């Protein structure tokens, strides 16, 4: 199948939706691709059905009215030439010709290996939250959360609200840094409210700073965790562990397209345009900054794509959210102890079952790939790549197509000449 549009947007989270609304409202033919069944991204997952979050509801209905088209279940597998994306949608393949592209691929959790982290019942912090939002019954189940930053509290609030017995919220950051960050929130009223609402739901739940997981134990499934809490070890019997430390941007597609990446973020100008002409990037790709940054950068990119002027208020908001992103990066940086949790037997690459001991003689990611098959499995290093970067300082390699497991048929560019773009006809 083939599609053509003025603007294609990859990712239907807040950033992608804001870009789509601004561009479609200005008259562009906009196509939005997302691998999920509904728009909303990870942060607004399920909101298209539930409508409990007011901000999400507002943007989702604006998106529905904007005239932008949405294709769910769509995964971009290759970008063989400028202006062309090859996409897989379940069993069918799709070629998309576009005038401009907005990358809004969001972020994933930063997983770090520790003994027992491959046991069923051990998930990410947001990973566990997502599964509960998607119907996993947590009522009466004992849960331990180990992570960092605002997402840790957000996940705890969800689990608590769904009847989970949250035994411990383990924040890795030291108390001083944690409270320094909390106080920083005062300068950002929107964030303060968010934080306050979340905390209010968590009265009576035990929280600890300078706390992290040491080991997950169990026969066929998680049975208990060993934790380090303010310098002391303790063991807790539990049913679920959510463990991940902050977020890392999903940079694969940006790298595949040749966008410049610096300091773990895509380099953009004030129009959110990357160093590759006609390709924009928004949201978490610019450095982890949350919903506000995603919405504002999305609006800026949508306006730029449609060649519309930028309102002053939007410019101002942009500077404000960038300051928040800076504070978050400082707070969420994993502490050195977290890099030393894995034992020689602990698997680093979960797809190819590569233990830490297999990497002894490797000095970079390329060697680890070639000699030990690190990152050669289904997820293509999406999980172990970020871990290896944190553990060993190994920089990510360039991405080659296919970016994801794909059928051969999906990688063949369309044979016939593509349909003419709407605006040019």
């Amino acid at each position: 199948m083939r599609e053509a549009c003025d603007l294609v947007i990859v990712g239907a989270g807040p950033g992608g939706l804001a870009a789509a609304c601004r561009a479609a409202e200005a008259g562009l033919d906009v196509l939005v691709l997302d691998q999920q069944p509904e728009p909303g991204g990870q942060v607004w997952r399920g909101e298209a059905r539930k409508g409990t979050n007011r901000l999400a509801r507002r943007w989702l209905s604006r998106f529905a009215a904007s005239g932008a088209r949405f294709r769910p279940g769509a995964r971009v597998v290759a970008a063989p030439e400028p202006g062309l994306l090859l996409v897989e949608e379940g069993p069918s393949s799709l070629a998309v010709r576009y005038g401009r592209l907005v990358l809004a691929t969001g972020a994933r959790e930063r997983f770090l290996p520790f003994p027992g982290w491959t046991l069923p019942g051990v998930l990410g912090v947001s990973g566990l939250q997502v599964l509960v939002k998607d119907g996993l019954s947590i009522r009466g189940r004992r849960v331990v959360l180990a992570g960092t930053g605002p997402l840790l509290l957000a996940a705890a609030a969800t689990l608590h609200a769904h009847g989970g017995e949250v035994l411990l919220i383990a924040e890795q950051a030291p108390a001083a840094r944690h409270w320094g960050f909390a106080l920083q929130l005062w300068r950002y009223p929107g964030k303060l409210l968010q934080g306050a609402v979340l905390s209010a739901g968590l009265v009576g739940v035990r929280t600890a700073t300078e706390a992290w997981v040491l080991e997950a134990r169990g026969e066929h499934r998680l049975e208990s965790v060993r934790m380090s809490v303010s310098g002391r070890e303790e063991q807790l019997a539990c049913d679920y562990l959510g463990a991940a430390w902050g977020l890392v941007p999903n940079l694969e597609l940006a790298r595949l397209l040749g966008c410049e990446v610096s300091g773990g973020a895509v380099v953009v100008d004030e129009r959110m345009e990357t160093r590759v002409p006609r390709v924009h990037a928004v949201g978490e790709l610019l450095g982890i900054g949350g919903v506000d940054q995603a919405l504002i950068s999305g609006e800026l990119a949508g306006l730029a794509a449609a060649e519309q002027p930028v309102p002053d208020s939007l410019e101002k908001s942009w500077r404000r959210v960038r300051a928040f992103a800076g504070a978050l990066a400082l707070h969420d940086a994993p502490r050195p102890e977290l890099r030393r949790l894995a034992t020689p037997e602990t698997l680093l690459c979960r797809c190819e079952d590569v233990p830490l001991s297999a990497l002894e003689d490797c000095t970079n990611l390329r060697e680890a790939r070639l000699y030990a098959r690190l990152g050669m499995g289904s997820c293509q290093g999406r999980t172990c790549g970020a871990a290896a970067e944190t553990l060993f300082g190994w920089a990510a390699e360039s991405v080659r197509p296919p970016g994801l497991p794909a059928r051969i048929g999906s990688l063949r560019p369309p044979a016939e000449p593509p349909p003419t773009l709407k605006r040019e006809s």
Partner: protein
Amino acid sequence: MREPGAKAATSVTLRINGRALTVPAGTSVAAALALAGDLVSRSDLAGRPRGPLCGMGVCFECRATVDGVPEVLTCLTPCREDLEVVTDA
């Protein structure tokens, strides 16, 4: 096993490893794996059980065979009536 609170009009029935399971509409297949038993989606190369990790289509740990299609990411797949899920565990 039936999730408490599920109503007939708002629930769907699928099969996981041949066993019928009724879940509230909107439940993902990955979440249903826990309702079906022990949240196991596949085995690793040494035969040890694995379950969902990221919940958002990144890690591929939750992959299973859905309606005959192998390696489907169950965390991105909503439960539908008569869906046939087979785990590799």
